């Protein structure tokens, strides 16, 4: 992006002063990736902020158009790399809606379990990096210790730590291994005391309060007008959560609260995310009780869902379907659907348009980081440059998702 390098003059308390343009990023530790912000400064005050992105643009939406519906799942992992299971879920829900197929209850509950674990792990990364940006080094180490436990569970269940591709169209990729619920239980029993530990380090900490309270305020009306969703909107007092408002994957059967606050500052968003971690643990506990020990994890939709390996070796039809799914793919009816889930960052929507061919006509991701980042100038203009870091952190952006 080109920017006029000449500076303008601004009125200050002591008279007229020249402003200065500062390039923050694209390689700055607190921008969580490759985000560049052009800051026009009057001393320490931000006069104007222009975010500039696209450094991580990989054309995922274009690539999806060249793949079959099942192949595109691997690309969805790489959009928001802190929430791969959530991306898989959003994409699969959209394609399932397009096809009009139902997923077995057991698979739905396992999906919920995995996605909520993912939410905790994403919030842990957020908390750790946000705290380190604001100078609290030790929280980072604690958060990554617990995140590692979640990644180990993912590795055990899905075979991958991060790019899981576990949720597939019509169900799950694999039957989860025996003993996975014991591992989850061990984690769920350990986690509440660990969250208390983080809170002990931060919530009452005078430096933390000084850096976060009253910083980055946005009113509820402005937040809605700027299309913000997720913890940022809930910290402004709007209880908008897709899991409650437009339930998917049997979320309506779970009992949990949507934490909201009204202060709408960096501190409130921190409190919201901590509360959300506790709510997620509540959902995980319920899901563990609900998951039946036996039952299918894939729906019975010949020609769409790959057949079981056993059947493939014994039944001719299954063999043919298997071959057709992995060579040609399947063709959903023409139409357009939009499916939204609540990602850790906000409303993650997937828009899929089909023209009746085995490859999608268009796949679009409504990336919450991208849209929430739009409000950054509003949060920081007129504030101090030190608050810029707190404000970038509080939106919780993932640049892979911003640029796609």
């Amino acid at each position, binding site marked *: *992006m*080109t920017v006029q390098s000449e500076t303008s003059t601004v009125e200050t308390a002591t008279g007229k002063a020249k402003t200065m343009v500062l390039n923050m990023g694209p390689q700055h530790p607190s921008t969580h990736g490759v985000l560049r912000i052009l800051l026009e400064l009057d001393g320490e005050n931000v006069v104007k902020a222009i975010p500039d*992105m*696209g450094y991580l*643009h990989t*054309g995922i*939406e*274009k*690539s999806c*158009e*060249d793949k079959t519906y099942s192949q595109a799942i691997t690309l969805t992992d790489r959009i928001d790399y802190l929430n791969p299971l959530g991306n898989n879920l959003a994409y699969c829900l959209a394609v399932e*809606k*397009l096809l*009009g197929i139902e997923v077995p209850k057991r698979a739905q509950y396992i999906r919920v379990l995995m996605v909520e674990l993912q939410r905790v792990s994403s919030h842990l990364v957020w908390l750790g990096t946000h705290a380190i940006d604001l100078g609290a080094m030790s929280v980072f180490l604690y958060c990554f210790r617990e995140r590692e436990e979640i990644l180990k569970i993912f590795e055990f269940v899905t075979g991958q730590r991060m790019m899981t591709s576990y949720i597939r169209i019509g169900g799950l990729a694999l039957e989860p291994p025996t003993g996975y619920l014991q591992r989850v239980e061990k984690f769920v029993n350990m986690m509440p005391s660990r969250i208390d530990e983080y809170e002990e380090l931060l919530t009452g900490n005078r430096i933390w309060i000084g850096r976060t309270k009253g910083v980055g305020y946005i009113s509820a009306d402005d937040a*809605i*007008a*700027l*299309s*913000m*969703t997720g913890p940022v909107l809930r910290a402004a007092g*709007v209880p*908008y959560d897709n899991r409650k*408002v*437009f339930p998917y994957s049997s979320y309506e059967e779970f009992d949990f609260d949507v934490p909201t606050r009204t202060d709408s500052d960096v501190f409130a968003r921190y409190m919201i995310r901590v509360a959300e971690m506790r709510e997620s643990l509540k959902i995980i506990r319920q899901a563990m009780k609900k998951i039946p020990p036996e039952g299918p994890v894939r729906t019975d939709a010949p020609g769409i869902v790959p057949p079981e390996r056993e059947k493939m070796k014994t039944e001719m039809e299954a063999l043919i379907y298997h071959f057709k799914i992995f060579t040609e793919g399947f063709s959903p009816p023409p*139409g*357009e*659907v*939009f499916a*939204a889930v609540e990602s850790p960052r906000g*409303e993650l*929507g997937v*828009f899929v*348009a089909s*023209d009746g061919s085995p490859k999608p*006509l*268009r796949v*679009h991701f*409504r990336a919450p980081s*991208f*849209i929430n*980042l*739009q409000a950054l100038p509003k949060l920081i203009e007129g504030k101090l440059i030190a608050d810029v870091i707190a404000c970038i952190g509080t939106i919780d952006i993932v640049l892979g998702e911003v*640029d*796609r």
Partner: protein
Amino acid sequence: MVERLRGWSPNAISEVIEFRGETTIVVPRNLLRDVAERCRGDKDLRFNLLSDATCVDRYPLEPRFEVNYHLVSIPRSDRLRLQVRLSADDPVVNSLVPVWPGANWLEREIFDLFGIRFTGHPDLRRILMPDDWEGHPLRKDFPVEGYRDIPAIATRYTRNRT
């Protein structure tokens, strides 16, 4: 919902599509902003959140482009899709930034990747691609691997021989 908009202006809706429980209202191009304002302001509709805006390229069919706005009503827990169809030779439509300020970056993205121009947009620049990029990558006539600087192997071979 549909009756409410029809009652306001019979021309406001050119087509209603119901598919998999989702309602899409196709709006004539010149009425888009009016309908959007109506959807946001009407006390029975109250679509206060613009969730998403995106575009579909149906090349080589005509009208080629479909611009979709996904609206959410937080107080009523409802969703709606507004659709505008644009032809290939005149892909221009009124911007919805005056109605929902959040449309700003979404429309910039559509402009960047599809080359659709939004009149009345305050800051219509490329957002993801570099400023000097040629073409609009999400159009169907844009090759998936991009336009290459290096000529294909066959042409290089023939050039060396002559």
